[in-house]
């Protein structure tokens, strides 16, 4: 219990530091902090500028601003977008469900596919099919996610016309949404499974050299029985945390996939915010993503504790 407490404490501390960093960035960057906090191209008269400056507390000392910042965050107030004329938290809430719709199934499918195929690849590679598999996963692993999406969009939607070119939906019916989601989810699954594949393959390569694998064989287990009865779980345990850490990278990949497929999730929100230099939205998105990554790591730790008797027994 104390170990879990320590872990949670460390995660909270990490969150605290990253959130504080988010406070410092706009104030430490070159230029007027007001512009950095409001976003550029926001046309304002001088009097409103001064009004806003005092309203946002920028005339107060940093320490007070810092306390106000945390006060806001604890009330889920992530600032106001003067571009979109709406509270950042409201905007994020409306966009994030689309991103989750894309990334959750892909992350789950990618984890299953990647670890399963990666385990087989680490176990042995005799057949030509395995070699083909390994090479294709390696190619996907080495391709930037946005380029992978561009290629898939080009081949399957543009050339073959199998999928719609853009967006999450056109009519809004479930089948329509699924049709729109299919290709991006596929790309994202390939992307995340290629990363899991590489990690799992390496882990199985190491794990299968352990004596218990040899003893399993001596007991009469045949070939892949040894892999799935004995090695798989042992190989998965040490990499659960690695897979969780990789979640941040995979989630970033989702943003790029959204941009290429013109889907109205967080990715395009960030892209539009970049175009208009809408800093509050950018910062709010960063915070949300941080919270998600940290939660994924916490989840991985809890999962690890449940799966590994050596941890849960102590």
């Amino acid at each position: 219990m104390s170990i879990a407490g320590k872990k949670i404490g460390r995660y909270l501390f990490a969150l605290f530091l990253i959130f504080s960093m988010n406070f410092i960035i706009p104030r430490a960057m070159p230029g007027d902090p007001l512009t950095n906090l409001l976003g550029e191209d926001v046309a304002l008269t001088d009097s409103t500028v001064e009004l806003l400056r005092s309203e946002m507390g920028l005339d107060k000392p940093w320490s007070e601003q810092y306390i106000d910042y945390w006060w806001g965050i604890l009330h889920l107030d992530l600032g106001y977008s003067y571009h979109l004329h709406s509270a950042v938290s409201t905007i994020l809430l409306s966009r994030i469900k689309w991103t989750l719709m894309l990334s959750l199934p892909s992350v789950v499918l990618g984890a299953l596919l990647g670890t399963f195929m990666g385990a087989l690849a680490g176990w042995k590679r005799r057949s030509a099919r395995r070699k083909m598999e390994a090479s294709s996963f390696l190619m996907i692993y080495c391709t930037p996610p946005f380029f992978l999406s561009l290629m898939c969009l080009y081949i399957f939607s543009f050339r073959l016309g199998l999928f719609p070119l853009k967006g999450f939906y056109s009519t809004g019916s479930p089948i329509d949404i699924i049709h729109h989601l299919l290709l991006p989810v596929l790309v994202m699954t390939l992307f995340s499974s290629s990363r899991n594949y590489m990690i799992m393959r390496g882990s199985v390569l190491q794990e299968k050299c352990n004596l218990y694998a040899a003893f399993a064989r001596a007991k009469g287990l045949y070939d892949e029985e040894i892999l799935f009865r004995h090695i798989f779980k042992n190989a998965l345990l040490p990499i659960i945390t690695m897979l969780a850490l990789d979640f941040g990278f995979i989630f970033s990949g989702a943003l790029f996939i959204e941009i290429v497929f013109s889907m109205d999730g967080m990715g395009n929100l960030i892209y539009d915010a970049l175009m208009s230099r809408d800093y509050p939205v950018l910062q709010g998105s960063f915070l949300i993503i941080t919270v998600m990554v940290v939660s994924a790591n916490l989840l991985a730790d809890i999962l690890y504790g449940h799966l590994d008797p050596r941890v849960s027994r102590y």
Partner: protein
Amino acid sequence: MNCRHIKNRLLPTNTSLCSLVLFLSFLLMALLAPVIAPYDPYIRFEPYRSPSLEHLLGTNDLGNDIFSELIYSSRVSLIVGFGAALMATIIGTVIGLFAGYFKGTPDEILMGITDIFLMIPQIPLIIILAAFLMPSFYLIALIMGSLWWTSTARVVRSKALQIRETSFVEAARSLGFSDMHIIFSDILPNIVHVITPKFLMAIASAMIAESSISFLGLGDPTAKSWGMMINFAFIRGGFINDYWWWYLPPGICITLFVLSVVLISYAFEESEEAALRIE
């Protein structure tokens, strides 16, 4: 009985040779860009030309020769990749060495910092910093380098923990050599083989990240890189109009270069395992 004897390479040995050749030819391409490229990448010809003998990959919206642009762009892409990786490797190595050598409280503090850095969503943070700073590509490399050292630090630390217990380090300590001397002249040379693959993987990550950021239009606008080329092709109609010769070659270049680096890194790790076998 050790089953590491079983050959289970990702790809056969001649593949690592090929990847080395590929890697070196990209390096040469960047170094000798003015010699190889048929034109200056900023000269303007007639825009939107299709590939021909005159312009191997046609011209872009401004009329620049895309083939020359591709060759010159390798410079920025490689500088960002290598620069970020070098910086990450130096930070990671120093932190890992100190944590592993001194153990105890310094170790806990340094590894605590590492854990926090591991938690930062790096690409979103780079996007934000790039949006605020509108940086030059040197600065982009610097930012990435200061975020990417975590895995190197972890590996170096665990190796340093092992090596500090060996007899030759004990001997050096009893002879009264300073800690700094032991760390940098006794321990460091013995972990170069674990740092090298990490360095190569950092190049790969940095190149993918650089191209992704450039694709968002956050790259250095004064410098051409492969990611910037794809960005221009994407936002200026190259994609919609099916000018594959515009956006495909830079993407392929990134993928191939990353592939060569990753393969060399794997070859390193495998030869390392082979060396362990012989003891």
